[in-house]
């Protein structure tokens, strides 16, 4: 098991807003790692910096030992990083089917595409019902399913999920977490950002806690779950 992904002292900005203030973290091959933290802590920004949607002004991002700090997102993606962004990023005027196909843009193996499509529809039968509806007219939760499905279609080595349970009905939340676990067992590395920290920590191996752009705590998931500060601030357990 090597370090698949590594961030060293990463600083990212939105204009003059200093969103990441020296983040260092790593994800090893085969792991599920979760980032937790309150609103605005910089979780989404971390994922965006990794996938190249924004570039770090300082520090380095390495994928498999290669420096990808300033690599454009389409190259990062083609190197096996999947990113299901916050806000879903559905193509509103493509149908559900086409949206999913877009997910497999860099995949050439027809068999994988078919398998993944089947998997997606198995997870979210709802999407199959809506297969030729435009993405933009889906309900919020349906869009979330589509975004996750599209991430699956990419067949990435490492899948980064930004709040995948947001807006999903409770039954589906369970399904999502089961799926993440299953994917991981089949060999996909996972970097997970979740507000539902309790569930995230239940399936993750390790976790990082972010506070206003910095990492304040990191440990095994099980231990974090028992950490008093974490319990108090993020799990809602007093």
């Amino acid at each position, binding site marked *: 098991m090597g370090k698949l992904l590594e961030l060293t002292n990463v600083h990212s900005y939105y204009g003059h807003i200093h969103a990441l203030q020296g983040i260092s973290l790593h994800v090893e091959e085969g792991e599920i790692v979760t980032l937790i933290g309150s609103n605005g802590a910089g979780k989404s920004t971390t994922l965006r910096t990794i*996938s*190249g*949607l924004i570039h770090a002004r300082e520090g380095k991002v390495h994928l498999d030992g290669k420096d990808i700090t300033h690599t*454009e*997102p*389409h190259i990062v*993606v*083609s190197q096996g990083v999947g*990113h299901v*962004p916050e806000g879903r*990023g*559905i*193509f*509103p*005027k*493509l149908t559900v089917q*086409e949206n999913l*196909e*877009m*997910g497999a*843009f*860099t995949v050439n193996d027809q068999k994988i595409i078919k398998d993944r499509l089947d998997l997606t529809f198995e997870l979210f039968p709802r999407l199959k019902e809506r297969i030729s509806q*435009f993405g*933009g*007219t889906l*309900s*919020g939760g349906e869009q979330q399913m589509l975004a996750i499905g*599209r991430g699956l279609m*990419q067949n990435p080595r490492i899948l980064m999920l930004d709040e995948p349970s947001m807006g999903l009905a409770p039954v589906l939340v369970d399904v999502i977490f089961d799926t993440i676990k299953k994917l991981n067992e089949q060999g996909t590395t996972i970097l997970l950002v979740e507000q539902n920290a309790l569930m995230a920590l239940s399936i993750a191996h390790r976790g990082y806690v972010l506070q206003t752009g910095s990492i304040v705590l990191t440990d095994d998931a099980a231990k974090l779950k028992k950490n008093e500060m974490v319990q108090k601030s993020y799990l809602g357990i007093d």
Partner: protein
Amino acid sequence: MKQFTSNPFYKFILFPIGQIIVFALGASLVLSLFTVLLAYIFRGFMTEFDLVERVLLILPQVVINGLTIGFVYSTIALGYTMVYGVLEFINFSHSEIFMVGGIVGVELMAYFDHTGALQTMNQYVIIALAILLGMVISGSLAVTVERVAYKPLRGAPRLVPLISAIGMSFFLQDAVRLILSLTTGEFNVILPNFGTFDEFLILAVPGIATPLRFQIKSILLVGVTVIMLVGLNYLVNGTKVGKAIRAVAQDRPSASLMGINVNMIISITFLIGGALGGAAGVLFALKATKLDPFVGFFPGLKAFTAAVLGGIGNLTGALLGGLILGLLESFSASYLSTFTNGAFGAEYKDIFAFAVLILVLILRPSGLLGQTVGQKA
């Protein structure tokens, strides 16, 4: 049936051609019927002549004229619509891209004329070469313009690239004039005379007094544009590049997360739009026989209107919009004077076109074929 519709030959050749034919014939028919109906209604008001007879006399020719120019508009409109679709801004310099294509094509023919090849070579080979050159030059020019004047502006407020495009448009007009006039100060480029393009194909239709006359260049023009439209349709709907174009159009960050090289796709879009514009320029030159650096403005404006009429961002819409606009123009310019006994004439044709545009947009706010798939509340 389902099997058949997913057959690529049907999907990418038969269907689009069928669509074009339906649009062309449909629009012609509707307008013709409407005009004839009006003529019947107002028949009594004209004492000097029989209005219906007047109308019918030139009707076939009016329709042919309208369709011919309509196809040119359609082809230019595609360039606007493609760029609009992807970058959501009105590429004002597209009319200059169109102009450059035309001028380059004509200059090539003039060069052949100069070397004497014009009279010996097959006329269709010459045209094909001219169109090809026009496409290459215009396509590359469009890509260059994008790189220089629009790319640095990504993420800037929406109207900024619009102004940059206007600046580009001014620049190109004068730059082309500068180049053309370097030697003699002369900047009109004139199509050399060759071949049989001016001649007519005469088709006697039983039941119609005057035979139909199709000018060879009109047939050529329509033929080439149809081929290009079909090609474009395949490219956009049948290939991965097309899919990527659509994705980039809708959400750039998401597209890049799908592994799409956004910059390259934008360049490709400009390349295709520019090439179409260039081809349209050459075909237009065949018709107009003279071009100058300022010739792009009006066709550009019309084409843009056509793109909006059809629903901007929608390729089929651009096609339909162009045809309708061409027909409207032809009908209004040819008939307005007859109907109003000289009080209003051809000079109102643009008003007519705009009036119809406004009417259409009132009834269908996103154009004839544009869909409103907004974000949900």
